């Protein structure tokens, strides 16, 4: 395949996966810092950036040993997976043992996965607490997809565009961040996971991110071409 096609397809896939991943994370924002909303108490960008960075670290380490696209991308996915898993677990520990609340979803009455009742455990006037089971699983899926996308982008920049490793890492992060933020604007603050009503807005973010990633992919190819890295 042509390098331009490979680069653009990988960057496009990475951007769309980033957007999808952001929609699956349990983002609590400021209300969660007071344990009055479900999710981890920080913004979408911080969570996804942290997860993507961890993914890029593992992907970059694996990329020094192998040039198998699947292996590098999956190692990136595992890196962000680990980061999100630890973050959500520790957030839950703080919520349960520090703030003294029960992890409970505020958007659904019954947990769609475990079938546990949620409504009775929710404090009145609050929008859920902590990271309940369904949000935890949703967040893990989101981190897996986001990390896979970020590492895929890194691999494309490293191997197909012949970027130097640091340059590939920073450029991949730049494109990833732009997509994650556009997706975050679509969510508009807090989301619990795939069971949240806001998840239905996903196609709009996918469309926007696809256009932005397409342009970014073309620009990456232009850089590689004009900088004399390919062809």
């Amino acid at each position: 395949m042509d390098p331009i096609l490979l680069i653009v397809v990988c960057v496009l896939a990475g951007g769309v996966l980033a957007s999808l991943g952001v929609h699956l994370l349990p983002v609590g924002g400021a209300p969660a810092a007071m344990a009055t909303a479900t999710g981890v108490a920080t913004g979408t960008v911080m969570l996804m950036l942290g997860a993507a960075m961890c993914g890029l670290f593992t992907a970059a380490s694996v990329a020094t040993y192998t040039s198998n696209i699947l292996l590098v991308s999956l190692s990136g996915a595992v890196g962000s997976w680990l980061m999100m898993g630890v973050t959500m677990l520790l957030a839950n520990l703080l919520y349960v043992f520090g703030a003294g609340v029960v992890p409970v979803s505020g958007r659904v009455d019954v947990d769609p996965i475990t079938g546990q009742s949620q409504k009775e455990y929710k404090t009145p006037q609050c929008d859920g607490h902590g990271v309940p089971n369904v949000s935890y699983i949703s967040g893990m899926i989101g981190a897996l997809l986001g990390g896979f996308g970020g590492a895929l982008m890194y691999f494309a920049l490293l191997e197909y565009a012949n970027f130097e490793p640091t340059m590939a890492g920073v450029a991949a992060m730049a494109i990833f961040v732009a997509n994650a933020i556009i997706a975050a604007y679509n969510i508009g603050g807090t989301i619990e996971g795939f069971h949240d009503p806001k998840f239905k807005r996903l196609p709009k973010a996918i469309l926007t991110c696809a256009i932005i990633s397409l342009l970014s992919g073309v620009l990456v190819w232009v850089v590689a071409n004009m900088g004399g890295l390919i062809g």
Partner: protein
Amino acid sequence: MTVGGGPVVEEEKTEGFSFPPDVTQLGIISAIIAIVIVIIPGLPAVVKAVGVIFALLWGMDSVRKTSKYGLGTGVPSIGVLATGYGVLGALVGIAFAGILNVSIVQPGVLIGVIAMAIVGLISGVLSNNEKIIGMKIPGLERGMMELGIAGTLAMLLQFSIVAGSLDFNLVVERAISNGVIAVMFVLSMMAMFHPYNACLGPDERRPRTLMVSIEISGLLFIILGIFVAATAVSTWGVAGVVDGISLIVFGLIVWIVFFVKFIKTAMREAHSTVGTGLIKTIE
């Protein structure tokens, strides 16, 4: 996580430190100064640093303008977006640095700026369109375009400071592959999002917020100056030892002047400042 709480009426107070140009004037002035400095990579680091201050100031002003309506994800997101676009645009810029050269002027780098202006405009239109994301923020299209341009100019100028040139291979070798780009990435986004993120509130005043951006630029120059002086290959040339040391001195002066000025302004404009002392222990 809403910010600001609805449309804010622009109200300039006359007393205290004021910054004359309004948003549009500051944008035009900063863009012209930064563009003139960025296309001449042979200038001393301190002059380029002035360009960085103006580029980041413009970016910060755009962040303030767009995020006072409440983005829903916090102020930092749009600053990070600007730096993300900036890195990509700067890479495009240095890839085109070799063409269109007229003696010491390299207008080719501006292709990166134009590319990012287009990407920023498209993302702004898509984000603000009722049928797509529908953020309903007045002027978001212009804001995102300005952020793309400001971020790209700031990154290009920093590449130029550290590498002493905008040649693709030289920049990759001296400013990117050794990881200094990470410092630039983080401190540029800090200079754009931190001022408004820290100062926002009912009594936020534009001139006071702008001072914080210049102060963070000073910190950025201290770090870049240390880096330039430590990795310099010549003594007097561009990106040489003298350039690095003068950049450290410039950064220190900028940081101290604006830090003191900010604290004094904040003290003066506050209703009162009282010391609470240490937490009292109950016996």
